[in-house]
């Protein structure tokens, strides 16, 4: 579960977030909307313990976001714009490295299953350098599948993914939710988001306004 209390963040002269209050319960998926530059990625980065909020504080799984960062990180996965993959390593090595840093050591079978599940099992020994953007996204997704985090933060997860990839992602999100995970995603793609989002909100003026999920129609929001 995620709880933000009055989170604000300013970069130099520009205040991106002003006063964000948000609670996402366990087994719930929250969709974060907003125009470009509204601060969606900034909010996700703050929750992923990558940046420190200028004002306010937050709790994840009941742990204080500025004090118990390492404990939060062990239970959290952030799929960001960048895929966190090393170009010179192949798929298996990338997964092994990323998970080893989290203290997890999946078996070969688990790795194979995860790669098959995201449908890139045929390219496991290829350097990531030669992967397409969509394949990289899928590999990052495989990493999240192996990590089994309680908290999943997704930043624009649908970009670069094809229809099949989108289905795999949505299925994975549903699986996380069924296991009482918490999912927070930022998106522009309302059609793809509507089926999985339990709640939704728009970032405006650096603050969050909650809206009904049914109102996620493409045109009139942004």
């Amino acid at each position, binding site marked *: 579960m995620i709880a933000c209390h009055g989170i604000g963040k*300013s*970069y*130099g*002269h*520009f*205040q*991106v977030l*002003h006063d964000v209050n948000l609670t996402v319960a366990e087994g719930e998926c929250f969709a974060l909307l907003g*125009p470009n*530059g*509204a601060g969606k990625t900034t909010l996700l980065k703050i929750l992923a313990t990558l*940046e*420190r909020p*200028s004002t306010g504080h937050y709790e994840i799984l009941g742990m204080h976001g500025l004090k118990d960062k390492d404990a939060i990180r062990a239970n959290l996965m952030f799929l960001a714009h960048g895929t966190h993959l090393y170009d010179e390593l192949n798929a298996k090595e990338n997964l092994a490295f990323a998970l080893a840093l989290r203290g997890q050591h999946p078996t070969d079978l688990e790795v194979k299953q995860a790669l098959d599940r995201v449908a890139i099992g045929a390219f496991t020994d290829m350097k990531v350098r030669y992967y397409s953007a969509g394949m990289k996204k899928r590999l990052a997704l495989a990493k999240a599948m192996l990590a089994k985090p309680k908290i999943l933060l997704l930043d624009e997860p649908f970009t670069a993914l094809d229809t099949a990839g989108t289905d795999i992602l949505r299925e994975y999100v549903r699986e996380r939710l069924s296991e009482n995970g918490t999912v927070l995603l930022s998106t522009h793609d309302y059609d793809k988001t509507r089926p999985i989002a339990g709640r939704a909100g728009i970032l*405006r*003026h*650096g603050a969050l306004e909650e809206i009904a999920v049914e109102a996620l129609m493409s045109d009139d929001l942004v």
Partner: protein
Amino acid sequence: MTIHRVIRKVQRFQGWFGSGAALCLGAGLYLGLIGSPADYYQGEVVRIMYIHVPLAHTSLIGYTVLALGSLWYLWKRDPIVDNMCQAVAALSAVFTALALGTGMIWGKPTWDTWWTWDARLTSFTVLLLILVGYLMLRTFVDDPEKEARYGAILAIVGFVDLPIIHFSVEWWRTLHQPQSISMRGVSISSGLLVPLVFMSIGMSLLFSYMLMVRTQLLYLDRLLHAKKGRLLSQFHLSKSDS
């Protein structure tokens, strides 16, 4: 937040620091320029010492304050301490540069050269480079939180490095140049000490006074920009909404 209150409290006495600095510097200048005799060995040139040595001392005190403030910032993350660190770095850089300048002016009539790789001059130059690097680093970071954090790290590492730099430069100097040209051995007789003490105290008070003014300046700047930034982002977003 305690340090916040301490800074506030000290700033209430800002005027006293300013007047104290003016009085001490006035007395020091009078004693140094008029009330004291010329030195037997150095002649009138010794009077440059009364301005050079306090500047150098004060800049070192300033660097110590910078390192302590940086430690405090990393511990408590109090933004006004960061303002103080940024202020003290700029002031220390100015004082170091002026100490180097007056040292060079002292060197010309004494050693007949503007510059020599004396151990102290060299380590002060490295100190100046570190401080200028610190100020440059701060201008190259977008996020104010990161700016403060990175600056604090550089300040602490540089502070630990300073004695090592000084020792290495001193050893290197003794290898390569005759010891005859050295500020060491310029013994300070008691007649010279009185104006020196006045100038040193006055310079430290002046430094504190300037530090308070500059901290206040940076704090107000941040305040103004934060408020303006909030208005700006609201304006920007309401524009893009409509």
